[in-house]
């Protein structure tokens, strides 16, 4: 019979769910790399389309990196909860003892670790390739670190809401992209400001505030979405 007190604590359980997702991402390396490869490829298309003018590319680099990162982070969202729902794992996760909001948070953290972090690493070479001045690079990466976290939160929320919907994959970008526009605006504006010698700090602070708002709200909404999806 159940011995009380032997159960794992909530943080330990949260870490276990994240660990399981990371292990799964490792096993399915191609899926994990897909988003990063898309990011690099899409970014590399711009010089081909716009012409090799260094001035133009340097000017557009912040926008290109941010838009490509936004789109690349969307790619794995469809499967974030979809695969769990299909094979019945979501039922087991809901019964694991974690509140639904924490199940959702664990999946969002896993999404950031497997998509946001690799995007962050790939953003540096892409930005250099587009001619972004090196002193501005830390601001790009700082902004992207906050921005990809926002994307994982908003994306996870949207993914749980469209879970079980017939055309979920089509709905997902339509839900996520408008909600993520503030992150895009502040992130790209910080880079613009830095390039023109203005203060970039307020933009990144607004981005941080956006993250601080999304951090408690998105998992709660996503938890309600998961509850509805298993019904």
């Amino acid at each position, binding site marked *: 019979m159940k011995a009380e007190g032997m159960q794992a604590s909530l943080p330990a359980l949260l870490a276990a769910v994240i660990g399981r997702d990371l292990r799964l991402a490792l096993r399915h390396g191609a899926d994990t790399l897909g988003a990063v490869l898309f990011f690099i490829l899409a970014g590399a298309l711009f010089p081909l389309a716009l012409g090799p003018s260094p001035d133009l590319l340097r000017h557009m680099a912040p926008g290109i990196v941010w838009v490509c990162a936004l789109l690349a982070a969307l790619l794995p969202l469809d499967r974030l909860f979809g695969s769990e729902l299909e094979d*019945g794992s979501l039922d087991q996760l809901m019964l694991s003892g974690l509140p639904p909001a924490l199940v959702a948070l664990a999946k969002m953290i896993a999404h950031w670790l497997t998509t946001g972090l690799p995007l962050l690493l790939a953003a540096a070479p892409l930005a250099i390739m587009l001619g972004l001045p090196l002193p501005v690079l830390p601001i790009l990466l700082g902004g992207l670190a906050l921005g990809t976290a926002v994307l994982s939160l908003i994306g996870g929320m949207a993914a749980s809401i469209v879970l079980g919907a017939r055309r979920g994959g089509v709905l997902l970008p339509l839900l996520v992209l408008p909600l993520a526009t503030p992150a895009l605006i502040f992130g790209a504006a910080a880079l613009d400001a830095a390039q023109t010698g203005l203060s970039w700090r307020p933009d990144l602070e607004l981005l941080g505030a956006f993250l601080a708002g999304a951090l408690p709200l998105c998992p709660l909404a996503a938890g309600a979405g998961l509850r509805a999806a298993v019904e």
Partner: protein
Amino acid sequence: MTTQAGPGNKNAGTRLRRRAAAADPNPRTIAIPASRSPAGPLLNVENISVFRGERLVLDGVGLQLDAGGALLLTGPNGAGKSTLLRVLAGLRKPEGGHVLWAGIDALADRTAHAARVAYLGHQDALKPGLTLRENLALPARAAGSDPKQAMEALDLLPLADLPARMLSAGQKRRAALARVMLARAPLWLLDEPSLGLDTSSIGLLEALFHAHRETGGIIIATTHVPLPLPDARTLDLPGVSGLETMEEMDMESWS
């Protein structure tokens, strides 16, 4: 059938719910002999009604089980057996009725109820890319139990390091049963547990069931074939007539 509903249509849902509970003068509660323990039954389910879309799947279902009890849910496809299990697991909120565990409303705090439940769905919920050991690591961690012991009980140790995609249907089912065992929960809710199992595995299942009931656990299982559950009670869900849709009921209560 008279209904209390007035001409206003604003509370259609409530009215339907009320009607669902009152529809049948003899609700499909099985008359399980009165509980022997003075404190009342451990699991007391009253008057559960569930709609799927516009169709009434469960209509006033009730059941009572004491510690160590077992119940088989039978009935035709679509009778709501799996739905009832999901309600009891707290995965689905019923439109009406109560689930009482030791006298406490179990569905009021579904996360807390999850600790009492080990649920086996009709899917095995194994990740094909992970080995059997890795698949069982999370449930073992959640309940603080020993995955090795569970794998041994279900004769899975030789397969522990194989990816789940290499396992046969019966082996996967056994792995899912190992997870049920790992949960160390008093209430086992099993959706066709013997699906795909060979004769010797049924023997393992019998030992598992027996050990669980010996320690005061409850087993509720849906099945179409006989299960090794001696002196288990049976609840036959006849299924609600498929014609009884919400619209018709609405019209009925209007007239």
